[in-house]
């Protein structure tokens, strides 16, 4: 697959690049950001995937989170894809209604493989993130295909959790900032799942972290979750971390959940704790 480099900037000794390509899963052009640390010049590095939240593109994370120094020090390649297909860019798949709300459609892929029309052709973010993108990265960049981890924020947090839980052993570690932990029970999730997956709620559970944990068979996971205490969406009941924690406690899945006093849902919150998360992943990726 041909990669087209859109931009490249030197940062903390490494290179922050943005590429564009034609996605098979999504049937449109997609952009993604890649950070190559200094160590990548001389050898293969582990790969850390970041999934952004609602309304974000590949730009928010690389501009606002301040992750570069930590990634550079620990020698990690960080990949940040877009949050949904952007069909209007190509002037192709104009799907009606995809821009109507900020929490559904464009910029709100929810990292599922949609089964409902008109979304099912393009909105296959789950497969894109778990299959197509890693293959692309492994083929084109100096990464070790055996060492991969995933993390994200909000909807991206949800995405990271479900990718890890649905693929035991694929990711060495997982972490999240203010994730949507129990989408089947929160307004966002209900809206998105009914749109992408239909009304059969049993299909929804396949993409719900709290539910997935309950039947998680697999290998040891070490989950780090940071949640701003002053996060409005937490107070609105969109995130529901307690449910997830309770389920993990029961299943003895190791989680450290930190409720951070005074912090909100923004990238300022992410920037504050991003170093802890990168270190968390480095511990497993560089072991």
């Amino acid at each position, binding site marked *: 697959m041909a990669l087209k480099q859109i931009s490249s900037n030197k940062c903390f000794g490494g290179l922050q690049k943005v590429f564009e390509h034609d996605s098979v899963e999504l049937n449109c052009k997609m952009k993604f950001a890649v950070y190559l640390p200094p160590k990548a010049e001389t050898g293969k590095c582990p790969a850390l995937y970041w999934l952004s939240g609602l309304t974000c593109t590949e730009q928010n994370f690389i501009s606002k989170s301040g992750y570069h120094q930590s990634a550079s020090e620990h020698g990690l390649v960080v990949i940040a894809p877009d949050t949904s297909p952007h069909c209007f860019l190509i002037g192709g798949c104009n799907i009606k209604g995809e821009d109507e709300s900020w929490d559904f459609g464009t910029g709100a892929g929810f990292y599922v493989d949609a089964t409902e029309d008109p979304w099912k052709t393009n909105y296959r973010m789950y497969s894109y993130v778990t299959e197509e993108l890693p293959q692309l990265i492994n083929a084109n960049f100096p990464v070790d295909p055996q060492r991969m981890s995933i993390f994200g924020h909000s909807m991206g947090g949800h995405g990271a959790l479900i990718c890890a839980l649905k693929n035991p052993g694929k990711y060495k570690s997982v972490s999240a900032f203010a994730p949507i932990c129990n989408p089947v029970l929160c307004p966002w999730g209900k809206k998105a799942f009914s749109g992408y997956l239909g009304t059969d709620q049993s299909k929804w559970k396949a993409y719900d972290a709290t539910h997935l944990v309950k039947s998680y068979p697999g290998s*040891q996971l*070490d989950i780090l979750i940071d949640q701003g*205490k002053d996060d409005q969406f937490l107070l609105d009941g969109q995130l529901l971390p307690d449910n997830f*924690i309770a389920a*993990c*406690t029961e299943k*003895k*899945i*190791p*989680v*450290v*959940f*930190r*409720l*951070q*006093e005074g912090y909100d849902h923004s990238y300022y919150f992410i920037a504050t704790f991003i170093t802890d998360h990168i*270190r*968390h992943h*480095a*511990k497993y990726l560089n*072991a």
Partner: protein
Amino acid sequence: MEEESGEELGLDRSTPKDFHFYHMDLYDSEDRLHLFPEENTRMRKVVQAEMANESRGAGDGKAQRDLQEEVDELVHLYGLEDDHELGDEFVDENIPRTGVSEYPPYMMKRRDPAREQRDWRLSGEAAEAEDLGFGGWGSAGQCQDLREAYRYTHGRASEEYECYVIPEEEDEEEAADVFCVTCKTPIRAFQKVFDEHKEHEVIPLNEALESAKDEIHKNMYKLEKQIIEMENFANHLEEVFITVEDAVAMADRLGKFLKTKTDVEISAQPEFEDQTLDFSDVEQLMGSINTIPAPSAPVINPQVPNSATGSSVRVCWSLYSDDTVESYQLSYRPVQDSSPGTDQAEFTVTVKETYCSVTNLVPNTQYEFWVTAHNRAGPSPSSERAVYMTAPSPPIIKTKEIRSCEEAVLICWESGNLNPVDSYTVELTQAESPEASGVTESVVGIPTCESVVQLQPGRSYIIYVRALNMGGPSVRSEPATVHTIGSYFRLNKDTCHPWLTISEDGLTAVRSERRTPARELSPSDTHFTRCVAVMGNLIPVRGHHYWEVEVDEHLDYRVGVAFADVRKQEDLGANCLSWCMRHTFASSRHKYEFLHNRTTPDIRITVPPKKIGILLDYEHSKLSFFNVDLSQHLYTFSCQLHEFVHPCFSLEKPGCLKVHNGISMPKHVTFY
């Protein structure tokens, strides 16, 4: 050549040297004969002379002519032509003779006269020499006898003997009949007229022989006298030795007598007491006997540094005069700083040398020494008093109180001595390398009974301590072993709350079900009063320290660190001098807090840790907690550590927790 010098000496001197009889050759093996043909030659010539004398003496009745002939025969027989040939002769003796025909004719000729000579030779004084019997030439046994005879004769001869060596003579047909004194050679009468002998004095041969014989007899007599004198000397020497032995024995007895306390009350009768005895005669007599004066006072040396042991000192002194000294008396007693009224026991040792190793002393003690010199006339004045000190006893390392980390160790010990010592020395050696490597490092001049020593990480060390005073160092203490892996500390019983029991190894704290009434403790007490807690003794060294605590899932506990002066009346984490992780288990729910100054972040942990790893990092001012089994990081405090902190543990309900030490930091911890 030996014989030449012998001749000269013999001619010039009439008195042989005194101690020259025991010539080495007396003890030579037979073999020596043929190794040193020159000596043999000399011997032979002496023998030759003797035998010649004998032949002349014994054969007085014989015709002079015959004697001459025989002499000549002897001359040739006993090797006068050629030294080397003669040497060969003797060498050849060893070879069993098969046939006589091997030898040149002249040898054959000689043999016969030898046999003839044998019989009459056996008479007379010199016959002693030949007692052994002269075998003629031609048989091993005869050779043997000949050799022995020569040996004996040679032994009695020396270079200094006046040996009239009858020189070689090529011409054997014409026998000599007169003797030229000047040339010391027998010549024929007509020769006197000619040549070199014109001016020389000549005497008849028999006269010459007589005088030669006389000379020999005189020399022998002198030798015998010397033997007697030697024996006398040896006897005298023996007497002196016995006298000295006796004197030493006497001195010993005297010394012993002086040491024993004799409580003998001699009650003298009044009349005796008043009598003045006139000792002047005796004194005069004594004085005439003892002409030597009593010696002058010796000078006692100051103690050589580091020469003492814990129980002995080596005292030395000198005598700066030519006085005769038969023995020294060294006295000593422990230095007392108490009032003079108390008398310490005084000891005395008698020695012959100017030094003495005094043993059976008490360690780390000062002793006063003084010495007097003694001879027959009496004792010298006492020397000055010198103070010597024994080395101290070795210290005893408090092994249970050793604290260490990867970079250093804190050792403390008991002095091992009642009185103070000057300083201590710590010696370390690495345990991996064998004993042969010896001490690798010493820390000297330590003023107190504890020391922090820098070490390399990941090694094992054996540590010894010595005490030092002016007498020298003590022997090494019993060793202690230190491993620089992780940090080692023990729970400090002096800090523990009354409801806690600390195990013998200092690593387990138990809170029993029973509640003993908490006694009223003053605020300055080192024990925890409110929090049922105990503090560990971490080595006061910066850097990082890692230890683990084993807890029960259902146990309510607090684990963390605190400054040494934390208020013991408060809970751990309730003030700004302590940080801890707190676990409470209630209603089947685990609750975790990370407390400092009463505040805690909101943290949920889904899997309760059974073993908690704690990392204290002074460098980065951080205190981190981990779930060891999961390699999971739990929480990190940022703490300003301006002073040293100690690990703290508290049990909020009955149960026990166990500390694990000496663990090197696991890899996952290194990320923090």
